[in-house]
């Protein structure tokens, strides 16, 4: 009686979970559903006089294999969703039909192959329980197969290492190379080779949105975070001194543009800095994105357009 209650509960749970595994959109849900199926099968093993296999099922499958699946899912990208394109016409439909037919065939064929009540494992496990009897079988009659599986496991571990290993195509850039690159960029475009100044950390503020102050008390333009400034601008809470600095900078940029060359001769502005942004400067979608950006209280049109108007002005 107890067994059939366990069976019916777990059978329903495992079939629903298996259907969820097949039909859920997200791969992580599929993995969790597979975990549910494996756990319920472990309980079914335990019910059927196989305590050793139940333990192995939980340790190996839900422990190791599921972790491996989740790890690879995270590596490959959780949001790698399925494509809905059918490469073979009507494949889904016929797969489901074939699956149903196969299930019916198996259930009717194998399900009716067994007659009579189970013999039970009492006689087979006489010599000291399930685990010792299995061990006796493994280490006497099937010892060769057991040794071969050890070779298989070693091969699998080696194979995984070989397959997952990636050779570098070129040497990793050293600190020296990176420094050379920075100064080469400095010679070419006048890009500041030093890191960007950090935000202001002063008595009253310790946040990324506070610009750093120069020794004379004015704001260091390089330390103004453009994204935050734009957000504050849209909310109307941009501090006036920051707005002033941004405005001056924008004016300088326009003047340099009107001269023909960007920051080639004069002092480089922040905009130049962003244009040839190195790895340590954050990219600024200010130019060429085609959309109007708001800087310091007015709408800045994309570069091409503003250049055109200046051409007209000449």
């Amino acid at each position, binding site marked *: 009686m107890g067994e059939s209650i366990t069976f019916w509960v777990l059978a329903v749970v495992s079939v629903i979970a298996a259907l969820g*595994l097949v039909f859920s959109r997200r791969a992580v849900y599929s993995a969790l559903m597979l975990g549910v199926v494996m756990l319920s099968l472990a309980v079914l093993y335990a019910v059927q006089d196989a305590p050793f*296999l139940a333990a192995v099922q939980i340790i*190996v499958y839900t422990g190791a*294999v599921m972790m491996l699946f989740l790890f690879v899912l995270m590596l490959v990208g959780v949001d790698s969703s399925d*494509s809905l394109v059918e490469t073979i016409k009507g494949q889904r439909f016929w797969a*489901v039909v074939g699956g149903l037919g196969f299930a019916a065939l198996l259930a009717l064929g194998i399900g009716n192959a067994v007659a009579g009540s189970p013999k039970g494992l009492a006689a087979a496990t006489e010599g000291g329980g399930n685990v010792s009897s299995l061990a006796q079988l493994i280490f006497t009659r099937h010892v060769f197969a057991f040794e071969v599986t050890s070779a298989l496991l070693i091969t699998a571990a080696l194979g995984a290492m070989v397959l*997952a290993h990636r050779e570098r195509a070129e040497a990793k850039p050293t600190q020296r190379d990176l420094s050379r690159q920075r100064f080469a960029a400095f010679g070419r475009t006048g890009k500041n080779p030093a890191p960007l100044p950090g935000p202001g950390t002063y008595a009253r503020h310790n946040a990324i949105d506070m610009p750093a102050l120069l020794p004379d008390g004015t704001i260091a333009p390089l330390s103004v975070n453009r994204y935050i400034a734009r957000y504050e601008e849209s909310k109307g809470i941009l501090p006036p001194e920051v707005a002033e600095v941004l405005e001056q900078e924008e004016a300088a940029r326009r003047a340099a543009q009107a001269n023909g060359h960007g920051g080639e001769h004069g002092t480089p502005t922040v905009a130049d800095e962003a244009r040839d942004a190195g790895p340590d400067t954050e990219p600024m979608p200010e130019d060429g994105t085609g959309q109007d950006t708001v800087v310091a209280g007015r709408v800045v049109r994309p570069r091409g357009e503003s250049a055109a108007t200046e051409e007209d002005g000449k």
Partner: protein
Amino acid sequence: MTTHYLVLSALLFAIGGVGVLVRRNAIVVFMCVELMLNACNLAFVTFARQNGNLDGQLIAFFVMIVAAAEVVIGLAIIVTIFRTRRSASVDDASLLKY
């Protein structure tokens, strides 16, 4: 009761098979293969009890070992393919066809 276990195992096997045919994500296809192996193990354990013979459990144990090795290698292959093609879809790895 044995029949019930066998029918459950057949159902799980068929669901896994449908999953292998229907899904396109290589990892999910792999999970469905694992589901089919598990269904086989259930049948093995059930027959072991039906016949009063431990060999069925032994085979199930070996199947688990082989499945673990297979998962390791298969997932390593999937990761390698993903690195070169930026995709885990089974449709994209079709170069051997031509």
